[in-house]
């Protein structure tokens, strides 16, 4: 559905996208994951035909985005990050306009607008002025707009940004429902979001492609990073006890109040995943043996930033050697 090869985009001297290549196959839900400023939006804007590229080649359903721009654009339902809408129009009016603009034949227009409003659950605001809609509804009108011409490919830029948890859940369910009929490429900077909604993940940072794989493969990179314990007793004793354990790289004190301390023990980089459980047991045993009262034990997952830090470090290591 999407084929991107050696895509480069410069904004003046700034390189926003640097030699990115990937493919998206039919029927997949692909997450485009990266921290803020990674070049996600720029890439999606190029794929949707809004921006030109400095060099490289992009094909949408076999149509070159530069030479056959209109054909390529007609295959894509694109929702920009800010979900720009005309505030002076009513929802149904807007979607009818968009359907006509996207070349939906007059006879089918009404049915497709109704269908899109139904899928995106915006039927109850069909006659509301867009300017009066809440953020959650605006987001769904944006999705309805992307859907209205029933394109084979949906490109959604941060579809859950700025929504409350309840709305995020609704939008995720909506996207999961769309996956049956459409290929979806969505961008996000939240790792858990990709784990919940996507089959495949493309990781991008600082304009460069870091990794590409199934969600399970990416999840492996996200093993627990550290152990957090809350103990009562002498913090120095606890620190010594934890530092003595093999498999723990470093320990530091996160917080202390009276005689209760929160400690964080970071796993050694070489510690195999399988040994994490036994190391936790050893750590708790050592703390108890040292005469401390253990109040709470939990593992701390690595954030997206940690995964990226890890991946970029591996890159640098590879380049150095």
């Amino acid at each position: 559905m999407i084929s991107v090869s050696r895509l480069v985009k410069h904004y003046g001297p700034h390189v926003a996208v640097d030699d990115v290549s990937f493919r998206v196959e039919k029927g997949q839900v692909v997450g485009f994951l990266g921290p803020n400023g990674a070049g996600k939006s720029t890439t999606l804007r190029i794929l949707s035909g809004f921006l030109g590229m400095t060099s490289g080649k992009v094909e949408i359903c076999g149509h070159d985005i530069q030479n056959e721009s209109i054909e390529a654009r007609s295959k894509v339902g694109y929702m920009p990050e800010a979900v720009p809408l005309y505030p002076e129009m009513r929802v149904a009016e807007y979607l009818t306009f968009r359907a006509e603009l996207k070349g939906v034949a007059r006879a089918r227009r009404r049915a497709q607008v109704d269908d899109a409003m139904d899928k995106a659950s915006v039927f109850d605001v069909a006659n509301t002025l867009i300017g009066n809609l809440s953020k959650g509804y605006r987001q769904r009108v944006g999705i309805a707009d992307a859907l209205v011409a029933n394109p084979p490919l949906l490109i959604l830029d941060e579809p859950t940004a700025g929504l409350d948890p309840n709305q995020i859940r609704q939008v995720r369910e909506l996207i999961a429902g769309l996956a049956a009929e459409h290929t979806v490429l969505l961008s996000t900077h939240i790792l858990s979001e990709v784990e919940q909604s996507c089959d495949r993940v493309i990781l991008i940072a600082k304009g460069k492609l870091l990794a590409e794989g199934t969600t399970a493969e990416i999840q492996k990179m996200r093993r627990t990073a550290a152990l957090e314990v809350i103990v009562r007793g002498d913090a120095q004793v606890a620190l010594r006890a934890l530092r003595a354990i093999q498999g723990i790289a470093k320990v530091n004190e996160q917080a202390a109040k009276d005689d209760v301390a929160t400690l964080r023990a970071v796993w050694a980089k070489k510690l195999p995943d399988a040994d994490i459980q036994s190391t936790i047991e050893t750590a708790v045993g050592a703390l108890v043996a040292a005469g401390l009262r253990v109040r709470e034990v939990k593992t701390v997952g690595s954030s997206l930033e940690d995964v990226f830090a890890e991946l970029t470090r591996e890159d640098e290591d590879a380049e150095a050697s």
Partner: protein
Amino acid sequence: MSGLWPVFKRELFAFFVTPLAWVQIFVFCLVQGMHFYLLIDHFSAQTEVAGDQTPLQTFFGNTVLLYLVLFLLIPPMTMRLFAEERRTGTIETLMTAPVSTPAVVLGKYLAALTVYIVMWAPTVVYLVILRRTGVVDWHVAAASYLGVLLVGAGYLSIGTLMSAITRSQFLALLGTAFVLLVLFILGVGEFVTAAGTTLHDVCAHVSVWAQMNDFASGIVDTRRLVYDATLILLPLFVTVRTVDAWRWG
């Protein structure tokens, strides 16, 4: 030209759903009404009226009032066209739809032109009033309206371009007013410079005032038509290129 019709309809909708178009039409009708009243008042005191100095000819030609109204009303008609879409970001959804750039530019331009025509439409009543009390030369009337249409179309085209080259509606408004004023002042140069010089010829060629005087006398000169066509097509062409150039910014 896919997308021209829906863009045209939406733009027209945006004109009339906001108070802007109504305020403009109201102001225009008010000013032209006063203009016409003063003319009629003036002519009713005359015992004899020359054949080339009828109320109709004075209304369209020989007057500065017409241009003052246009300088005030044309810039706000076109300032929104592209600047607004770029400011709010809706240009992104518009240009990622399968539409061609010339269709978008033309759709927006034609919507502004339609509002301009709607604005002039009530003035036809003046012809009816004149007809009831005297003789109306319908050829002169037709030529005059053609002149008004062509001048307005050229001005709106310049305004469309100004709206495309800035994100700020206010700058688009000022830019349009400035260019229109410069064109007008160049035209006035016809009366200032000595006849026979190149400058005089250039000024005479671009003079909208002289053009309206001609059209209001029933003279439709091909040179004027060519100039008007240039004034309409050139800015629109540059607008299309400007909108395409955003992709590479």
